[in-house]
């Protein structure tokens, strides 16, 4: 009996590992595992977008422009930025049902994806995670101050303590996988919409629309056109910032239209709702963060309940973005992390955000620069991916080749690296920073007409098409022009 029990336990362990790998790994999902319709995915994206970071984005926008122009720049920047993001991540993963970074082997090569993940993606997502932790910390510090009269500094050590608590809770949620995240989002997203509406009512109960519309921007430059374009560029960056996580989430959807419209529409609606509140608060109260003004405006009970909800919503957002990133790290690390448990990799990912939470003012002060710098690289990445997937491959990616290794790999490129892709990303990101340097705020005259994102994305596409043709396509490398195994899919 003991022997049977041992074998049974061993078999269960292996089966559990397989199930875990299927849930958390790079294995392609089968139809029955792709559980999200357009409605499900919309709730997920709305709940992601409506998190506290959108208040900060709104508040940062009105540093440069007033309320009306702020809404215009928000709509322009997010609609275009999210569209570039959706074409650069969602479409590819959705079609083949494969996690984003495994799918991107077709663009960057297996080693090239690792380079992208361990530089751009990891740093970007750790930054967002730490920001959410700090926002959670500020919310609960404010609750303590209001409920118990503690008088803690909202950039002080107590913020760090609560931020670490948020990271711990985020780790617990993350360890339970995407199903738990999805269940939480079904509850959190509608609640957040109500909360944001309530916040706007509270804000406008104390201020008039005329005052809001007449309020000048908080810290503009002299050149109004430059202010407007900087605000557009910032919102483009905010839209692009969803790129690291969207493809992996979209693979759970049941069709391309559901994936594209729900990712773009959900993020757009959520962002617009929360950003309007952030803009109004930034202009009328001088601070977009609801943790600062929610209790004074809403009263102790409603204010604290709202902050509690917003605080925990930050945790679900944290878990959602960390899920995709940890999955990417696991998949691109080869055998190095193959035997490391999922929850331990999650814990490893959260170490740097935990360290950053000891400097709570840092992410606040550098928020705009952070969004723009990450946007420079993501715009370039999206340009390369769009050129590869839509123009070169015509949406045909050989599924098996994504899992083939060694010399038999038709998408081996140059030692696992698509040099054309990485060079195009590097040059285009540098081009972006030449047009608009978010650290020195220097701009070229071109910026006032085109932004930096659009020319950088266009350059990435053109440069990649030329370089990739020279290095791979004309030699028949890279598995371009293969037959479409899903050619008949969707035909009636």
């Amino acid at each position, binding site marked *: 009996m003991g022997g049977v029990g041992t074998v049974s336990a061993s078999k269960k362990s*292996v089966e559990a*590992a*397989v199930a875990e*790998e*299927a849930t958390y*790994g790079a*294995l*392609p*999902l*089968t*139809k029955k595992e*792709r559980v999200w319709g357009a409605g499900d995915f919309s709730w997920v994206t709305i709940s992601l977008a409506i998190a506290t970071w959108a208040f900060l984005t709104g508040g940062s926008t009105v540093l440069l422009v007033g309320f*009306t*122009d702020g*809404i*215009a*720049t928000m*709509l*322009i920047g997010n*609609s*275009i930025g999210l*569209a570039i993001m959706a074409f650069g991540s969602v*479409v590819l993963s959705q*079609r*083949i*049902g494969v996690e984003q970074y495994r799918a991107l082997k077709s663009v960057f090569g297996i080693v090239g994806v690792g380079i992208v993940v361990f530089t751009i993606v990891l740093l970007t997502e750790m930054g967002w995670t730490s920001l959410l932790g700090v926002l959670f910390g500020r919310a609960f510090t404010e609750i303590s101050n209001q409920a118990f009269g503690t008088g803690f500094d909202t950039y002080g050590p107590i913020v760090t303590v609560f931020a670490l608590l948020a990271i711990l809770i985020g780790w617990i949620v993350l360890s339970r996988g995407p199903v738990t995240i999805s269940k939480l989002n079904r509850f959190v997203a509608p609640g957040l919409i109500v909360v944001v509406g309530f916040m706007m009512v509270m804000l406008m109960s104390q201020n008039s629309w005329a005052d809001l519309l007449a309020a000048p921007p908080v810290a503009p430059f002299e050149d109004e056109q430059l202010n*407007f374009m900087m605000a557009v560029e910032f919102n483009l960056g905010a839209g692009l910032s969803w790129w690291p996580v969207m493809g992996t989430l979209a693979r759970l959807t*049941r*069709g*391309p*239209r559901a994936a*594209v*419209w729900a990712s*773009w529409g959900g993020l757009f609606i959520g962002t617009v709702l929360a950003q309007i509140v952030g803009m109004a608060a930034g202009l009328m109260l001088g601070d977009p963060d609801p943790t600062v003004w929610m209790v004074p405006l809403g009263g102790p009970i409603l204010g604290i309940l709202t902050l509690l909800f917003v605080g925990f919503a930050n945790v679900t957002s944290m878990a959602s973005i960390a899920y995709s990133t940890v999955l990417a790290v696991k998949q691109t690390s080869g055998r190095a992390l*193959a035997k490391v448990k999922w929850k331990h990799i999650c814990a490893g990912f959260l170490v740097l955000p935990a360290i950053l939470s000891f400097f709570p003012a840092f992410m606040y002060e550098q928020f705009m620069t952070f969004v723009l710098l990450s946007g420079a690289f993501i715009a370039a990445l999206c340009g390369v991916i769009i050129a590869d997937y839509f123009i070169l491959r015509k*949406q045909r990616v050989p*599924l*098996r080749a994504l*899992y083939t290794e060694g010399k038999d790999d038709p998408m081996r490129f140059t030692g696992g690296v698509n040099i054309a892709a990485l060079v195009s990303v590097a040059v285009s990101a540098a081009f972006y920073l030449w047009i608009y340097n978010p650290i020195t705020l220097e701009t070229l005259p071109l910026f006032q007409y085109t932004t930096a994102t659009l020319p950088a994305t266009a350059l990435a596409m053109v440069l990649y098409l030329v370089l990739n043709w020279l290095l791979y396509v004309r030699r028949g490398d890279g598995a371009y022009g293969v037959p*479409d*195994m*899903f050619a*008949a*899919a*969707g*035909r009636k």
Partner: protein
Amino acid sequence: MSQNTELDQELERRLVEIEAEEANDAIHAALGGRTIAVFLAAVAVIAGASWAVSAL
């Protein structure tokens, strides 16, 4: 049997299932030209209208 072998088998099972049973399924449809056009038009209308209103 090692876990890696088991996972390799699971990968193969999934690939075979997808190739055999899902190749014609709408879940794997390419994004159609009409959808792309409508999508881009929606983006252009929102961005263009916002630009125009702000310029007034």
